[in-house]
């Protein structure tokens, strides 16, 4: 061991003290106070599968509402927080503030976090149901919808999920190595994820280098030749799924100018007065960027801009066209649509016309998708969600769900928050009414730990995560970034073990 490690220990402890002092206001913010009451043996034991926003918000509501509920959160990765860590864009740090409230929950006396546990592999849902009175599935959507077109497997074609995972340090995407040596990138889909990808592709590196974007992504973007990003959707300007904040960020992105076809906006201005406020403001901003003649200052700024972005409407992907060596994407063939119907019933219909766009990078941002985690869990493969009523999994007593796996993969964090509170309320109602029997004694995490140990699985506790957190923060500080994320699960496990001589990764 030696004095070196002991000295490091002291520094870590000091850092933890400083962090908690800084957290004074944050503690008051969230009111999830850590009561030091011990859990009565007859308490209800609830297991949550998935350590992202849905899991944490469900846990929060449960422990805050009843003092006899113990909640254990299981997470596949050694690190918590799901899409808040791996999905939210690096240049949106304030959105990640919710991590503070999740930390409060994890540190609550009646809540515990168990990372590095793969439910469905290391332990089955059935085994969890044996150990707990109730199991809440909150494992989100780790898959993505595919375009289902020829050429989708060519080099240079990625799902937005993987591209975002790459710049956000998701271990399974660390080797993506996207080729950014082309001039034009085409993104399919016009939601907020599509805009995040466009913004990261075109942002000045000077801005990105101060964020928690991964170093390898930063290096790749610094060398990038991408100068033009098209954000392509099947339908028209009134159907874009992004929200105004993200659109405004594109409009204001330094060093870039908007480039759109005025013809695609015909008739749109006339609809403005009949639109609800959010859609109206969004459409107004879109029109301003797309067709309004800019003032002198803005015109000058645009003339100086070296990078361009724009929406293209009424286009659906038919095929990714290969390069002459047939290895990589060289273009994309798009079907031209027209719109039929109006209001909510607007549909895109093919005209028969086709258009080819030259590009070297194709990113499909058409939706995430939940997957089946365990054969014992009912799953609707058509909708790709767990069939449920108000969070109660159909035909399975004691099983609940919250978040994207319950409702589908749309919505912002606040949406998931409210949804998770709803599931928690349903569960608590069931306890109150007696339809969920919590009178039997269940082993809870002790039962599961015994199984995991037999299987050679070593769970990562929340304080283990805090060691990883500390180290990532330390590495980031050296570079002027909030953190430098670890990209390798092995490294995370190594770090979480650092101060325990008996621990093996």
């Amino acid at each position, binding site marked *: 061991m030696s004095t070196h490690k002991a000295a490091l220990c002291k520094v870590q402890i000091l850092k933890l003290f400083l962090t908690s002092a800084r957290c004074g206001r944050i503690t008051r913010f969230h009111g999830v106070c850590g009561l030091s009451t011990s859990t009565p043996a007859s308490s209800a034991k609830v297991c949550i599968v998935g350590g992202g926003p849905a899991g944490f918000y469900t846990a929060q509501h449960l422990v805050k509402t009843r003092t006899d509920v113990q909640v254990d959160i299981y997470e596949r990765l050694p690190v918590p927080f799901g899409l808040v860590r791996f999905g939210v864009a690096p240049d949106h740090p304030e959105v990640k503030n919710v991590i503070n409230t999740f930390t409060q929950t994890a540190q609550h006396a009646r809540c515990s976090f168990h990372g590095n546990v793969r439910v469905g592999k290391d332990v089955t849902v059935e085994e969890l149901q044996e150990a707990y009175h109730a199991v809440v599935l909150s494992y989100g959507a780790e898959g993505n919808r595919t375009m289902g077109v020829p050429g989708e497997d060519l080099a240079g074609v990625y799902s937005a999920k993987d591209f975002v995972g790459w710049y956000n340090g998701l271990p399974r995407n660390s080797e993506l190595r996207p080729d950014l040596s082309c001039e034009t990138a085409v993104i399919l889909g016009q939601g907020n994820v599509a805009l995040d990808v466009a913004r990261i592709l075109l942002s000045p590196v000077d801005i990105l280098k101060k964020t928690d974007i991964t170093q390898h992504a930063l290096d790749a973007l610094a060398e990038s030749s991408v100068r033009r990003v098209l954000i392509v959707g099947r339908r028209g300007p009134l159907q874009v799924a992004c929200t105004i904040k993200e659109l*405004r960020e594109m409009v204001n992105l330094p060093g870039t100018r908007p480039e759109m076809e005025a013809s695609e906006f015909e008739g749109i201005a006339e609809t403005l007065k009949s639109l609800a406020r959010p859609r109206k403001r969004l459409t107004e901003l879109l029109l301003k960027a797309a067709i309004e003649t800019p003032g002198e200052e803005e015109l000058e700024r645009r003339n100086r801009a070296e990078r361009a972005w724009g929406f293209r409407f009424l286009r659906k992907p038919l095929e990714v066209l290969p390069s002459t060596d047939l290895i990589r994407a060289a273009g994309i063939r798009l079907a031209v649509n027209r719109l039929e119907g109006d209001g909510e019933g607007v549909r895109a219909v093919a005209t028969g016309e086709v258009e080819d766009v030259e590009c070297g990078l194709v990113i499909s941002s058409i939706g995430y998708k939940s997957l089946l985690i365990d054969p014992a869990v009912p799953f609707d493969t058509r909708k790709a969600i767990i069939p449920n009523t108000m969070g109660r999994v159909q035909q399975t007593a004691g099983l609940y769900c919250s978040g994207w796996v319950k409702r589908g993969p749309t919505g912002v964090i606040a949406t998931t928050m409210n949804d998770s509170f709803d599931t928690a309320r349903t569960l608590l109602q069931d306890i109150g009414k007696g339809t969920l029997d919590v009178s039997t004694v269940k082993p809870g995490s002790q039962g599961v730990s015994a199984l995991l140990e037999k299987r050679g699985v070593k769970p990562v506790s929340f304080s283990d995560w805090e060691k990883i957190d500390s180290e990532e923060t330390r590495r980031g500080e050296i570079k002027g970034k909030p953190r430098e994320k670890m990209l390798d699960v092995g490294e995370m496990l190594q770090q979480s073990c650092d101060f325990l001589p008996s621990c093996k990764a």
Partner: protein
Amino acid sequence: RYFINRDRQKITTSCAKGNSFLDRVVDQNIYIDGFGACEGTLACSTCHVILDQKGYDQLGPIIDEENDMLDLAFGLTHVSSELPGLPIQRSGVSNSPFARRGERHRRSDDAGPTL
């Protein structure tokens, strides 16, 4: 001074001039489920409050960024008079530094837009 939450329960508070709503909810440990998720950085809509006309008129000019977040809020109002006898209401984000007076209502938020 009081808040009315989504269940129409009245929560009475004391207030000092210069405090924002957000501060007041935090400092007095008023438990409103999910309130202040982004901790006052204008990155969500969970501190959305509905004020009475008098209170709203005392606020400073609204900026684009605040309006952008309000677009996501559930129960957004322009000028609406709900039931007879209840005050006219307007919407604002409660992280403004101005003090509020008069009655105020607070609704918690529900669905945001699709991603």
